[in-house]
């Protein structure tokens, strides 16, 4: 009992941040599954969703802002795909990767220009930021909401991939890009849907993440984006459940390490984990061939 009392705050924080990483990681893993592209700009779409929320909430009611933020993220993500990735689809993979890095820096610097480099404070979303006590731990409501919401969303996503026509198309494209286009699958549509889903989840993730850690600045997307990417690799890039499991593992482990007192090593841990996984099991936890990849 004493053990749980001591560690409960860390585990709660870890599960919450893990859920938020998971929502970002899905975007990485799905895009990789289909395009074999690491979409470096994804973390910045996440940051921009947060930033737009800051501006929208000053003129619009909350529910409308939330909807508009999600729409904004989708529009931004699909525009990036159309402008920066689609023309390069037949180019070597390295070119498209560099294009992604370029977009990432463009988004960061544009945010720097808009905000003037100052940290913006995320708006208070009523009950999400209310303080609640569970046993020995006191935390924000969002900590409890995040894992539940994440799991519900992932469940819906897996259902979509398994049981709908577009889901089947996505699985086909991720298995074999050329053959599926020969079979009459509209590749452009499948890719657009992938970006729509990934960006919508990143927007939801940004609402949860920034409700908990309320400062947004142009580099805010970099660290969560990087960790979500590690989570995606850890779980086996291309696999949705893998990314979610990876994200929760990283979130919890990171906070437990801080709890032991090794605060200096919490970030190092994440990246050491990445190296070990790549050495021991290059395909990640769930990255085996016979698993459906999207």
């Amino acid at each position, binding site marked *: 009992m004493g053990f749980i009392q001591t560690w409960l705050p*860390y585990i709660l*924080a870890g599960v919450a*941040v893990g859920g938020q990483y998971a929502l970002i990681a899905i975007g990485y893993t799905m895009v990789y599954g289909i395009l074999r592209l690491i979409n470096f700009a994804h973390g910045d779409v996440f940051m921009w969703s947060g930033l737009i929320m800051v501006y929208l909430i000053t003129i619009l009611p909350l529910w409308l802002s939330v909807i508009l933020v999600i729409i904004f993220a989708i529009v931004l993500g699909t525009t990036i795909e159309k402008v920066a990735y689609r023309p390069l689809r037949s180019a070597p993979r390295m070119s498209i990767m560099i294009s992604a890095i370029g977009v990432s820096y463009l988004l960061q610097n544009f945010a720097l220009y808009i905000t003037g*480099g*100052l940290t913006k404070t995320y708006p208070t979303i009523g009950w999400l930021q209310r303080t609640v006590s569970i046993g020995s731990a006191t*935390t924000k409501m969002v900590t409890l909401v995040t894992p539940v919401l994440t799991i519900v969303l992932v469940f819906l996503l897996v259902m979509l991939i398994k049981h709908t026509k577009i889901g089947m198309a996505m699985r086909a494209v991720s298995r074999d890009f050329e053959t599926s286009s020969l079979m009459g699958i509209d590749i452009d549509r499948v890719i657009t849907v992938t970006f729509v889903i990934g960006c919508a989840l990143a927007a939801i993730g940004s609402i949860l993440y920034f409700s908990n*850690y*309320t400062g947004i600045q142009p580099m805010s997307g970099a*660290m969560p984006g990087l960790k979500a990417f590690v989570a995606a690799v850890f779980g086996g890039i291309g696999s949705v459940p893998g990314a979610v499991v990876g994200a929760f593992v990283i979130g919890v482990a990171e906070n437990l390490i801080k709890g032991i007192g090794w605060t200096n090593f919490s*970030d190092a841990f994440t990246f050491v984990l990445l190296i070990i996984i790549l050495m021991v099991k290059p395909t990640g936890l769930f990255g085996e061939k016979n698993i459906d990849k999207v």
Partner: protein
Amino acid sequence: MKKFLALMLTLVLVMMSLAACGGGSGSDSGSGDTIKIGVFEPASGDNGAGGKQETLGIQYANEVQPTVEIGGKEYNVELAIVDNESDNSKAVTAAQDLVSKGVSIVLGSYGSAVSIAAADVFADAGMPAIGVTCTNPQVTADCEQYFRICFLDPFQGTVLANYAWENGMKKAYCLSKQGDDYSKGLVNYFIEAFKKLGGEVVEEQFPDKNSDFTSYVANAKKNGCDVFFSPVSTEAAALIIDQAEAQSLGMPILAGDTWDSNVITGAAKGKNVEIVVTTFYQEGGNPEFDSGIKEWMENNADAKTNNGGNTDLAAVTAMGYDAYFVALEAMKAAGSTDPADILAALPELNATGLVCGDVTFNEVGDANKTTAFVKKCNNETGAWEFVKEQAAE
């Protein structure tokens, strides 16, 4: 066609960069009766908010006193402002930029780390620099060109430790940022002084770009500390305050001069968090200055935005104001606009009539200051309340 396009784009880029160079040298040649003061401050990055506030004080002072008489000749004072981006490598480039712009003296920076990083550039150029609120001893210790008008971290750390001990706090949780000379230095001096008094200390650090302070707050609670000492940047501070509220920290948060900012009061407003800081200037210390600068910010939309959207006065702004006048005094004393002459005049300078108290320099180049103001945040009004004046001994 594609090749032609690529060629055109390249040409446009080259032309643009040439045009930019041309503009720069053009403005340099027109400095007949103007003297330039370099402002070396962060306008973005971790310390962007504080740097902007410090710059505001300098700009206001320039507004109040736009000319200076040196050796019987009237000069217009022009500010050359650069952004060091709160980044040690960018700081060097920004400092070189100032030197090449031909400034006579440099003011800044907010944040000790960037000042230490740029010290070599100023030393090589023989450029006098006046640190405004950089409190780390190293800024002036290794650099003869660097002077400063604020108190130092060993002093501030002792003051804070004394305050904590006198208020019955026996165990302190100290949090600093990895690789940040300011917070690490201040934490070390605090620990040294606090242990000497008989206190117990738990020390931790967080990495760059970290925004998750949940576990640090939880660690402070787990270790049963009486006070949370975290003299970190205001960006991190807002997040710490937020987490402290979320997890009901239940102990006061103590910090240094950096936290004397409306970013902090804004973050703490309406929250159940006790915040105590030491600082350079107490609002109300000079009513004329207070009302003047507030009116200026009210009538100047840019200034108000840079101050965080309101006209609350930060101590660093008052210090920036003072620094400008110290620079003018130094030029008058030197009777020349040449950096070398100004440098020679600085050690003997006695600047009076400033808002944060008179300034004289000791042999290292630091201002002789003996007291700091202790302030506490009122969580209902979101304003600072004066607690006491605290000396080191």
